């Protein structure tokens, strides 16, 4: 952002202030994440930078907390990771199926009561999580699903579908319906048309909605706190307990792994978004 040469001094100053503010905000956003990396390699038990670390002494760094995360005694992280992945994967599949179907219906111009139904479908996103937690807990307790994987998966489908509905509806808004009519006129049945024509075109939207659903489930702690028993502990629950009791460097090792995972998800979401824009661009 080079300034034109005729800029007055006061606007020049203002411009630099603006750049400084922006730099500060970006730093504020991203810097906290980077504190975690070095401290997770701390050889000591304290969560501060030791003198050795400040001097870049190799002895001050170690992988002991990563070892503790994987091999530690009474290690809760293995079970938690397994549960988290199982729950998140099933919740994502459920959200994608239910959400995509609903989005297809909502995008039809024949859909009656569109506004009301849309509001109902995305309500779990608007209602504060604590309230969703209480309501879902009441249901699961009555249905005998509290403290089961099934219960948590269902709860996460509730929380995840709104994202799929929104992303797929957005993808479908740029969708050229004449291609499906063309397929139908060429003798394709609706299921075939959906699988061969519609789905490949809306797939980026479906997957990015699925990513949202996955992250929602993988990161969700409020509802799980109400629902989970000892057997259903997840990574967020373990982190929550760890952070409440004492901040141990093992948590930072886990956190580092989670940041790497979120970087991976960010990259795939970004690639998908671009692909979706390209695909829809061709259709226009």
């Amino acid at each position, binding site marked *: 952002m080079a300034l034109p040469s005729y800029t007055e001094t006061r606007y020049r100053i203002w411009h630099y202030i603006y750049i400084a503010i922006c730099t500060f905000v970006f730093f504020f*956003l991203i810097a906290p994440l980077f*504190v975690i990396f070095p401290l997770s390699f701390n050889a000591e038990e304290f969560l501060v930078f030791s003198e050795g670390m400040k001097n870049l002494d190799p002895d001050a760094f170690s992988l002991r907390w990563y070892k503790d995360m994987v091999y530690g005694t009474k290690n809760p992280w293995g079970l938690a990771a397994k549960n988290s992945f199982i729950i998140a994967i099933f919740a994502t599949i459920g959200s994608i199926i239910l959400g995509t179907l609903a989005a297809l*219906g909502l995008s039809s111009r*024949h859909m009656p009561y569109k506004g009301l139904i849309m509001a109902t479908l995305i309500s779990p996103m608007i209602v*504060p999580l*604590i309230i969703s*937690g209480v309501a879902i807990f009441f249901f699961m307790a009555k249905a005998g699903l509290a403290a089961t994987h099934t219960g948590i998966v269902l709860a996460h489908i509730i929380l995840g579908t709104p994202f799929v*509905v929104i992303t797929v509806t957005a993808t479908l808004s740029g969708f050229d319906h004449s291609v499906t009519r063309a397929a139908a006129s060429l003798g394709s049945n609706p299921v075939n048309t959906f699988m061969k024509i519609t789905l490949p075109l809306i797939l980026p939207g479906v997957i990015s909605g699925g990513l949202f659903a996955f992250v929602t489930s993988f990161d969700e702690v409020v509802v799980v706190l109400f629902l989970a028993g000892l057997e259903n502990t997840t990574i967020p629950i373990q982190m929550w307990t760890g952070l409440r009791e004492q901040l141990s460097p093992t948590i930072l090792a886990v956190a580092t792994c989670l940041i790497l995972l979120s970087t991976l*998800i*960010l990259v795939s979401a970004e690639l998908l978004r671009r692909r979706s824009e390209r695909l829809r661009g061709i259709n226009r």
Partner: protein
Amino acid sequence: MSSETKQILTTDGIPLEVSLKKAEKKNKIKAFLLVAPLLLFLVITYIFPIGDMFMRSVDDRMVTNMLPKTFKAMENWENLDELPPEEVYRAFYEDYKLLAENQQHGKLGQRLNKEKNGFNTITKKLFRQIKRKKIDESASLKEQINKLHKRWRNVEFWQAIKRTAPPYTAAKYLKGMDMYFAADGSIAQVDEDRRIHRILWLRTLEIAFFVTLFCFLMGYPIAHLLATLPMKYSNLLMICVLLPFWTSLLVRTASWMILLQQQGIVNDFFVMIGLVADDNRPEMMYNKVGTYVAMTQILLPFMVLPLYSVMKTISPSLMRAGKSLGGTPFVAFWKVYFPLTIPGIGAGCLLVFILAIGYYITPALVGGASGTLISNQIAFHMKTTLDWSFASAMGLMLLTGVLVIYWIYNKLVGVDNIKLG
């Protein structure tokens, strides 16, 4: 000319209008069937349970079911300032005897004790008398019960029983606002030093408001920068917004706990630049400061993303036009650019405010006692005191607030402006 000849017929002889209507109806049903599975799922697992929360929050049938005869007899109790007639005593005695046989009398005592302090003692006394068969059912029960304890002769205790008669009550909602039903049935305020809930509501609103404000003040400039920079740079900077957005909430909270601790980096920095003395490091966590800082950083992406998506659509030539027509950059910004970003501001502020008002995890971890919000109180009653009906009532009060804000927003800006990513 008959009307039939005017109608256009399809190939199978049905009037086109009818045929079209039929097709339309078929399409409607098709579309609805696609939505039906999710709708049904949500209604059963989510919408009904929220209704269930409402039922729980107003349900007060326990006493109603325990003392059916008493409440029937109380209908004839006319002068409420005097002790009830003999028949009420008799009905109460019969109800209570039945409860005692079924081991339910303890529950009643506790419930009545909530209504009027000291009830548990006198019902226990009555229970012992019944157990020892010391009560003569052929004589006046009014006299015998009144003799047991002076509180039975106090009309306020009988009024308390009468107050529990209706099967539904708004008492939990009043409790959520630090009010209660006084002895005469009017609504009264809790003593000033015990008004904890009102403080919590106000604090929740205050924190949500200021977090929204901070997010706006910090989010607007960077959204503007992201929208005006060339793609090459803005994509790179966008990572700074998106990476926190995709990172686990607990990870981000953990990093703030490390940064803000007394020996943490922020305090180190303050000591280094000489802002505070090394032996006098301020407490920045477990209070409001920690809640503000952590929540602002965590919710900032929700402000930036909607702002960015709106600013991206504003053509830069508009600002140039404003300037070329004689406006200073400030005037051009204020009169041209800013009004165009209002939908984005609305969407961002709504998202952040609604998320902040129901925040639970971060305040619970970094908030300490002075930084906890209404959500923490709800969780406390769900998990610790097990007063689920009160938790439901508070939850619904919060939900009503959120829906009102959402409704106002929808009227002003329209909900369709919310975009993801």
